[in-house]
């Protein structure tokens, strides 16, 4: 079994070597960017933003975006503005957010104008300027941005920054709803439920909610559920209503069906469970073989009746293997940190290990972060990214 483990380790080195080499962007791109090429600077910023070919790092992305933004690159200006709005990669700053989002919006990209509207409507410092937001949304909407059209409709419906006007709200929602926009369908349905600007009509509302629900909108599922629970415009059907509420709950957040699970390294042979093999794996793990550590940890934590002690030991083993740069161990360790299983619950360390796992060739790491990291603050994300960077610098 030791033999197998060594063999596996060889394969592993071959596989991970290119991934490690990808931690820095191509030299040519860096040279161009350093020489002041705004396009190259922008490309670098988005490489760091998306974590393509590099370890995802919003702080590095912000630095390059700032240089490209100064050089007039609208995409970089927009990215930098959003960073200042959210506090990712930089310190949150509403004035800087508006400055760069405004600069980007001048370029005329409808999405950029919409982003400006959002920052105006709900500022990073808690401020809100709905009138200015309405203007931005109007421009973006006229330029064809459906999100802006719907957001403008909400302002008309609520009478924020504009005079309340249900007819205008309805017209805007209908425009987007006809193109299959789910938020528009749902909001239009609510106008029909309440009889705002239209005669109350549950049947039309039900059709709109159903259309949005089919595209996965949790809000629309809940609204359709209410109609079925009360028999408004649809047959009274409490069982179906309950089913809709259940689906809505699943469509939000992490559910047992969508939660990322621990994975074995597909390149390895399955762990043999006879006593002799386990003893050999245990010895090899003790001696510091990362593959054996991973296998032993996997064996412990996947046991159906894994005790707390076994889980903690598995966490320790995955951590030891992860420290040597072993991707599958990093990935599993990250999940354990998010779950607080065998290790303390720590979103920062969880995201750090998943980020590192991504750079070590674990292609589903961004999706795992997406699924588990929804409740993280900007500070936690920044912290996780700088820890990941520091980890790599320490290792090299």
């Amino acid at each position: 079994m030791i033999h197998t483990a060594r063999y596996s380790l060889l394969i592993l080195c071959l596989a991970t070597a290119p991934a490690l080499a990808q931690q820095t962007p191509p030299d040519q791109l860096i040279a161009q960017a350093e020489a002041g090429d705004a396009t190259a600077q922008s490309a670098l910023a988005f490489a760091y933003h998306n974590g393509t070919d590099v370890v995802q790092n919003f702080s590095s992305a912000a630095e390059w975006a700032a240089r490209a933004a100064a050089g007039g690159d609208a995409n970089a200006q927009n990215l930098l503005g959003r960073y200042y709005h959210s506090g990712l990669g930089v310190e949150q700053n509403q004035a800087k957010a508006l400055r760069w989002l405004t600069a980007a919006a001048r370029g005329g990209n409808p999405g950029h104008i919409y982003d400006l509207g959002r920052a105006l409507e709900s500022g990073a410092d808690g401020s809100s300027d709905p009138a200015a937001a309405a203007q931005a949304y109007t421009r973006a909407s006229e330029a064809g941005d459906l999100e802006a059209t719907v957001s403008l409709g909400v302002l008309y419906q609520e009478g924020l920054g504009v005079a309340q006007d249900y007819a205008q709200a309805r017209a805007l929602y209908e425009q987007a709803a006809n193109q299959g926009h789910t938020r528009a369908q749902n909001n239009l349905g609510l106008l029909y439920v309440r009889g705002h600007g239209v005669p109350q009509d549950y049947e039309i509302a039900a059709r709109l909610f159903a259309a949005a629900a089919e595209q996965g909108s949790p809000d629309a599922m809940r609204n359709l559920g209410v109609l079925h629970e009360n028999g408004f415009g649809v047959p009274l059907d409490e069982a179906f209503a309950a089913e809709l509420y259940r689906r809505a709950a699943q469509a939000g957040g992490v559910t047992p069906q969508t939660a990322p699970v621990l994975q074995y390294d597909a390149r390895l042979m399955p762990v043999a469970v006879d006593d002799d093999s386990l003893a050999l794996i245990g010895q090899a793990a003790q001696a510091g073989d990362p593959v054996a550590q991973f296998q032993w940890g996997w064996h412990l934590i996947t046991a159906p009746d894994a005790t707390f002690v076994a889980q903690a030991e598995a966490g320790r083993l995955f951590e030891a293997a992860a420290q040597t740069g072993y991707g599958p161990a990093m990935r599993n360790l990250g999940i354990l940190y998010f779950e607080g299983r065998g290790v303390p619950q720590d979103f920062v360390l969880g995201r750090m290990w998943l980020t590192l796992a991504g750079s070590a060739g674990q292609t589903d790491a961004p999706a795992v972060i997406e699924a588990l990291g929804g409740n993280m603050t900007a500070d936690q994300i920044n912290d996780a990214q700088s820890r990941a960077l520091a980890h790599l610098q320490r290792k090299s």
Partner: protein
Amino acid sequence: MFISWVGVGPQAALGFLLILLLNCGNLLNMITSSFLIPSRTALALCLGLGLGWANHAMSQESENTPPTMAEIEQAWKANDFVFVRESLKYLAEEVETPLAQYRYGRVLVEGRGGPVDLDTAVTYLSRAAEQNHIEAMTLLARVYLSNTSQDQDAPTTLARDTEKALDLLSRAAALGDDEAQYYLALLYREGNGVAQDNKAAFNWLLAAAQQEHVESQYELSRHYSQGIGTAQDNAQSLAWLERAAENNHIKAQYFLAAAYESGRGVAQNTSAAIEWYRRAAENGLPAAQRNLGTYYLQGEAVKQNVEEGLRWLTAAAKAGDPGAMANLAVSYATGMGVERNDETAADWYNRASEYGLGRAKVALGRFYEVGRGVEQDMDRAIALYEQALKTPDAAQAALRLGQLAANGALDKRFAPQSAIPWALYAAQNADADAEAWLVTQAEAGLRDAQSGLAALYLGSDDQDRITAGVKLLEQAAMGGDAPAQARLGEMYMTGTHVELDYVAAHKWFNIAATLGQSKAVDLRETINTLMTPEQVADAQAAARYWFENDERQPPETPQTVTVEQ
């Protein structure tokens, strides 16, 4: 002539044999409630001695005329079971009356006048039962219920057959046989061979009890007292217990006495209790003898009679009742009714202690501590307390060990760590020395002392003690005591004794969960839903700091260092 061979054989040997055979019968009667057939030893005796007589009788048979039932009954009264067995065999085979078949079957089952022969017994009992002989049905059912084929001394091919037994008992019970009703009730209650049915069990017990079936009366009382198959009814329970007791049911007498003594389910009446204890004591029940003797010695509810008291206590003690031994020891230790004698007291404590009685061990330990009636021996005393910790009287032992720890008597014998639970017990019982000792241990950094004292203080009404308790709990939590961490988290979550603080609560739940407190895992999940992402971030950072800074290490014991110039 049949009569003629009654006298055959040496009379002396016959008398000896009869005593043995009689024992077989008694054994059967004693264990009827568990459906058992005589024990292996008894069977062996019947087998070995009975056969010789049977063979002897056979050789005489041809000369004899048939016996009459009246003659058989006379022989039964005279304990001449060999004659009984042979005569009944003849009547059962030749005349085939159900009565003869039943009686022959019974003799075979009980092994009277010859070996136990269950296979033949079943044959004749079945014939009698087919002719609706009620007692035959019941006895046959009992044979079917006993696990006879397991008994190597009663060779038989007969298998246990609950179904047949149930059928026979149902028929006999319906025909009014009280014994059948009783056994049927037991089958229903246990769900043995039939769907479990407490209501049916109750009804059959009631039927049998009304026919003065004593064991049924006793069981019926239990059904009423616990509401099994009927509504709970203390008055009925007491009435049937009284009736069983009147019918000389020993356990009923004892429990009736205990009920009168405690006043549970009946008006408290000590003199009635004493009278019933007396009836049970006279019937040989050691526990009743002990209680009766203790009443006489104490002389409160009854006129003191030391001689009578010691007589009953000694009887119970000799029957192996450790409580009686301990009570005798108390009499000698205090000079209550007898001349004070520490040696005799220690001796009785020792005997009770050997029976595992915890309070006797503790009392004997106190004797060894000071060398009273025994040679002073602290090691022996502590060993006795440690033994007593494993008994229901553990509290007494823990209290004494805690007091000993507090005055330093356990130093060098136990690590302070292991004495902490005992000292805590003593402190809970308001032992100031034990509490002071615990405070010293807590200050020295012993986590168990910190968390134990914290629990003690937090249970008090005194604000200063509560404040001290919170501080101690924080210390224990910081030191890595996971249950203390979980408790502290709960206090922060609910704002009990501390200011409500979700961040602190999450931090301690998270740490405790990582250290293996499963309760903390759920609480962390719960409080997560009540917190903003920023609060969760702060709490996770605080937990990370705790783990990274190794605050789990207990503080170093302060060393006094003299620096010389």
